[in-house]
């Protein structure tokens, strides 16, 4: 349990449990600087994974009408319109508005968000049924035939990735024989599997395969980290405004992401937490506190008997 809190840089017990079947840890490097916001990844993911449609609406939030990662959206392209220059030199696109006399700098940030497949994954740690597990590729996957829909993983994810699928029964469905025990809805949790089925067959995930600019790069995590460092150095040398890696550090609060990013602004600008920490990091202390509280309650109630029956 304590190993969870230690920055081992490696998922607990992985890959030892796989023995001869062990594979290198696979992941994504999403380079947002070359994302063109085409959403091919969203579509390819939906198609390959047979994800239900989740509404056709206009949000008014730039070109983003998907809004978030959830049970039915496992790739989500964010769109951020900023009045900031693209390059530190000031070289940038501009926009003329009625509000300002001078043309203002303009940049349009796009980022294809996805499950981070954390080294220390909160969802996996808290899953009481073992439905969530660590694959031989080091990724985190839900077994849909085991999940009973307890929902504990949903608030345990520091990124708000995993979610319960809500498909209510339709009026035409047969009535439930046992309303308490019968299936009410899909009722299970879903998230990106890093295309576990495709990986098993030796293919790259659908999103990476469909990405026309290679903004989504799939490969062995160690190799991706090296590639990302080089890319960052290049962007810094070229004077881009604000490039930074997010989730590449094995010493961060979740032990590094299996799917990490190159961003152009603070993580919260893209709706990402700036310093995510796996909830179970504090669990040893939390269990101690719980045991103490239990003992105190025991002693306290016993003490209430001092002073007799009345």
């Amino acid at each position, binding site marked *: 349990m304590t190993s969870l809190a230690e920055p081992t840089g490696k998922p607990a017990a992985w890959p030892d449990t796989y023995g001869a079947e062990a594979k290198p840890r696979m992941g994504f490097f999403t380079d947002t600087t070359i994302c063109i916001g085409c959403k091919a990844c969203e579509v390819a993911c939906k198609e390959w994974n047979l994800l239900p449609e989740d509404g056709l609406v206009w949000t008014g939030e730039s070109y983003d009408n998907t809004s978030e990662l959830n049970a039915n959206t496992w790739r989500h392209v964010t769109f951020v319109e900023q009045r900031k220059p693209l390059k530190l030199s000031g070289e940038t696109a501009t926009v003329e508005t009625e509000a300002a006399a001078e043309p203002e700098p303009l940049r349009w940030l796009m980022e294809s968000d996805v499950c981070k497949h954390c080294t220390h994954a909160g969802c996996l740690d808290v899953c009481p049924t073992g439905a969530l597990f660590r694959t031989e590729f080091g990724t985190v996957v839900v077994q849909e035939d085991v999940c009973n829909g307890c929902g*504990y993983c949903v608030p345990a994810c520091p990124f708000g990735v995993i979610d319960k699928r809500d498909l209510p029964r*339709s009026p035409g469905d047969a009535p439930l024989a046992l309303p308490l025990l019968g299936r009410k809805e899909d009722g299970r949790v879903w998230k990106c599997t890093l295309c576990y089925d495709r990986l098993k067959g030796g293919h790259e995930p659908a999103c990476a395969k469909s990405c026309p600019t290679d903004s989504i790069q799939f490969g062995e995590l160690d190799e991706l980290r090296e590639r990302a460092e080089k890319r960052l150095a290049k962007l810094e040398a070229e004077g881009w405004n604000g490039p930074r890696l997010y989730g590449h550090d094995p010493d961060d609060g979740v032990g590094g992401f299996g799917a990490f990013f190159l961003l152009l602004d603070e993580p919260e600008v893209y709706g990402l937490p700036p310093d995510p920490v796996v909830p*179970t990091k504090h669990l040893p202390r939390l269990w101690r506190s719980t045991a103490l509280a239990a003992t105190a309650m025991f002693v306290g109630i016993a003490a209430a008997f001092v002073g007799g029956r009345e």
Partner: protein
Amino acid sequence: MTDRRPIEEAQARRNGRPAGTTSWRGSITERGTQMDSYYGRSIVKEPVWKPEIPAYFFTGGIAGASSVLHGVARLTGNDRLAKSALYVGAAADIVSPALLVSDLGRPERFLNMLRMFKVTSPMSVGSWILFVSGGASSTAAALELLGVLKPVKWAAELVSFLSGPPLATYTGALIANTAIPVWSEARDELPWLFGASAAASAGAAAAVVTPLGSAGPARRAALAGVALELGLMQAMERRLGFVGEVYKHGAAGRFNKITKACTIAGSALLAAGGKRSRAAAVAGGALILAGELSLRWSVFKAGFQSARDPRYTVIPQKQRIARKGGRR
């Protein structure tokens, strides 16, 4: 796929704004910390738990603390109180799993909870605690009612006695072990708060159903539980600071006020008239029970409010980065 809730409503619910309105954007200044957000959208997800869960926190607390009340009453020879605590606890123990099963997305798979024992999951540990403790106390109650198998009953009573306290406190650990700021930051208080609330609930319930002459310890447990709980709540809100603000607003704030009003009024009644008047004991006990149920609701709702507003996620994390000297 007919009859689907429109996505706008779902999104609006998630983001705490009415359907049809456009988003707000830009920066929020809170205590001097500038932050951006992605169209004001939440970062961590709100829990998907339904009202069964805070109801279970309440019944599980009653069950756990009643086991202790029952055990000590038995040891000190207060058989009348022992009996009422046993029956109250067993009733709560029978309701609890039904609430939990009903909340599952796939209720028919409830036994999957016992597929494994996983110390990293307070829900897994708690399922086993509830299985053992609930099984023991309902067995003991059934045997007491039937008046048979004395040795088995004693064994069941002992198991229930020892597994009651963790049953009453693990639920605090369960919600503290999440990414919801107002819960996870309160990891030092929540198990204690839930333990105190459990003692108050079990004491109040026993005070309602026990004759005055035997109910003294139950009344004192209720009063001490309320006092400790009110103090802890105060301390928790103060220590949480900005993150604890949710206890002043919205549903969490309303339930917080109801909790204080009910528990203080109930305690006053119980303390002033609980010794002499059965009516005062029943009314005081009922008020405290209502207050404790409201406390569980307040904490539950606070989690949703805390998840919904990205400020509560981002600002403490930015402050943590600043404390670490800018290093993530």
